[in-house]
């Protein structure tokens, strides 16, 4: 592997890791509050379509990202109403939200652009090179010549970490996820905290989807989220529910996905479908190898009914 190839590899590793990072940082906050949102995939695909339609309507990728965030948040709201408001089972609610999100975006897309799916050409989110930093040999251009959404992910990881571990809000959020009864006794409104944490996670997933459509593909395609929501949930586990580690775990998975294109380019004679399966197999292997050392929030996936 020469230096140009290595640089290209690192660039695509970061590019593929960013949507995972965005969604997984949001899901980290959600899970820390005691809610596991399997409907993340639904928020991502909604964010992709929302981002695409927003970018077309407002003729700008920036407002497209905002529309994507709103779409993701809206899907998160549906999940929150059932799983938190009504206290329905989180796994099944999340599965329904994912199925519904994929179906709804497909139906809207077909209704608007025809069943054959004319290639959309969208205003794209162009990479912005950060002076000085992007000049660092090898990793500079990979990390610091990316779309603005990448810098948003770099920023959100430490911010989420700070809020989670260094502020009163974060303490309340973690208490809600670890010991909701104690949190309630201390005056925390458990369901409200969980609602907000879930909406935040939905919005972040929506931005991840918008990134896919606007920075990555430059178009929308049905099912383009391709299971990234589920991988993001695995990334949260690998990052041990710590936003900073989650960012690194996401970039690691970006690298794993980039490897498939890369090994192919290097002439490894392996079938294309095997490369496609590789990130999922690697996720499974990483879960098996790592997860024993970490612990999920104690009240994860358990519904909460306030005691009046």
């Amino acid at each position: 592997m020469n230096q140009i190839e290595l640089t290209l590899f690192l660039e695509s590793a970061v590019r593929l890791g960013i949507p995972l990072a965005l969604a997984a940082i949001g899901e980290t906050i959600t899970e820390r509050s005691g809610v596991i949102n399997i409907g993340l995939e639904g928020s991502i695909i909604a964010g992709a379509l929302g981002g695409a339609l927003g970018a077309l309507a407002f003729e700008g990728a920036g407002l497209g990202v905002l529309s994507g965030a709103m779409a993701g948040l809206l899907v998160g709201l549906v999940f929150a109403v059932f799983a938190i408001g009504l206290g329905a089972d989180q796994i099944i609610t999340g599965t329904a939200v994912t199925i519904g999100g994929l179906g709804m975006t497909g139906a809207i897309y077909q209704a608007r652009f025809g069943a054959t799916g004319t290639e959309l050409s969208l205003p794209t989110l162009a990479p912005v090179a950060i002076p000085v930093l992007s000049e660092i040999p090898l990793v500079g251009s990979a990390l610091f010549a990316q779309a603005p959404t990448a810098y948003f992910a770099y920023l959100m990881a430490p911010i989420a970490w700070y809020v989670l571990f260094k502020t009163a809000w974060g303490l309340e959020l973690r208490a809600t996820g670890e010991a909701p009864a104690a949190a309630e006794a201390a005056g925390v409104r458990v369901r409200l905290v969980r609602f907000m944490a879930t909406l935040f996670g939905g919005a972040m997933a929506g931005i991840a989807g918008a990134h896919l459509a606007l920075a990555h593909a430059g178009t929308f395609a049905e099912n383009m989220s391709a299971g990234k929501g589920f991988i993001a949930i695995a990334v949260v586990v690998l990052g041990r529910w710590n936003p900073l580690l989650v960012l690194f775990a996401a970039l690691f998975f970006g690298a794993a996905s980039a490897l498939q294109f890369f090994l192919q380019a290097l002439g490894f004679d392996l079938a294309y479908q095997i490369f496609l399966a590789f990130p999922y197999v690697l996720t499974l292997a990483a879960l098996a190898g790592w997860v024993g050392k970490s612990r999920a929030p104690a009240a994860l996936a358990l519904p909460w009914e306030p005691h009046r």
Partner: protein
Amino acid sequence: MSAGIAPARAREAALLGLGAVTLTLGAGAVLLLLGGYDPVAAGASMLRGSIGSWNTFVSITLVRSVPLLFAGLAVALAFRAGVWNIGAEGQLYAGAVGGVWVALTFTGLPSLLLLPAVLLASCLAGGLWALVPTLMRLRLGIGEVITTILMNFVGIYMAAWMVHGPLQEQRGVFPQTDRIVEAARLPALIPGTRLHIGFGLALVIAAVLAVMFRRTRLGFQIRAVGASPQAAAVAGRIDPARVIFISFLASGAIAGLAGGAEVSGLTYALYEDLSDGWGYTAIAVALLGGLRPGGVVVTAIFFGALQAGAGAMQRDAGIPAAWVDVVEALVILAVLGLDRVRAARAAAPTGEGGA
């Protein structure tokens, strides 16, 4: 946890299901109106395409319901045991690959041996696909939700690789296997229709599961572990790990049959996109059926009709078939919502409108 979504009495489950379907059809009609479509025309073409004639009902709706029935039973069995098997889709693909491999390899065998071997292979392959998440849960304590979903993707790509690589048809042009020999094909259940014996086999499995849940020690243990593994272990002296192991693998095996029966009963070859998300639809099927085998039979046929009708709706009224996925999601949400309302009313103290 599964106790909360499996109503105690069949009558309650049926009422809940009917309520959910009514809510869903209402919400679906509103969504169609919002999308600028005519709900009445959509409904009419949906009915025509699903139950318009005896032949439509048998050869399209019932045929479509077969994989949903197998996979729905698989999901119901797992959920009853408190196992969140979201992996029926991958297990189905594994089963299809296993079945088609046997059918293409042992071509010389007589039908009496080959057919059972094909079905057995799809069971084994589906069970094998469930074994990875099972062991990860029991040995490493990793929740099966994520692992089964990840295995779905691996299964889909594995099947895709098979039809592009090792099992591709002789000429190597199309992404599919050769057609399987006559002896490996499931015969018709009703002569002159496309409905194959797989439907009957699924009904037999439903009956076996129903008897098992109600009459056997294992069925009791599954329900106990599903309600609370700790309580089952302490009060019932049941080994939850053993019960989870058995129900998880059996669930995978039944989901594998969904794939095996499809290739051996209908398509006679393996294609890349054999399943239209049936493994996920199965979750809606199982829930709407109240996680009861009898209920699953009814709801699988209902969803078979929905899918058959959606095809007609797309042809006649130009309504995207993706709407069916939205309807599935609405059904699940309606079941969950109504169930919570039922639970809240049951828990309400008497004299506060609880009568």
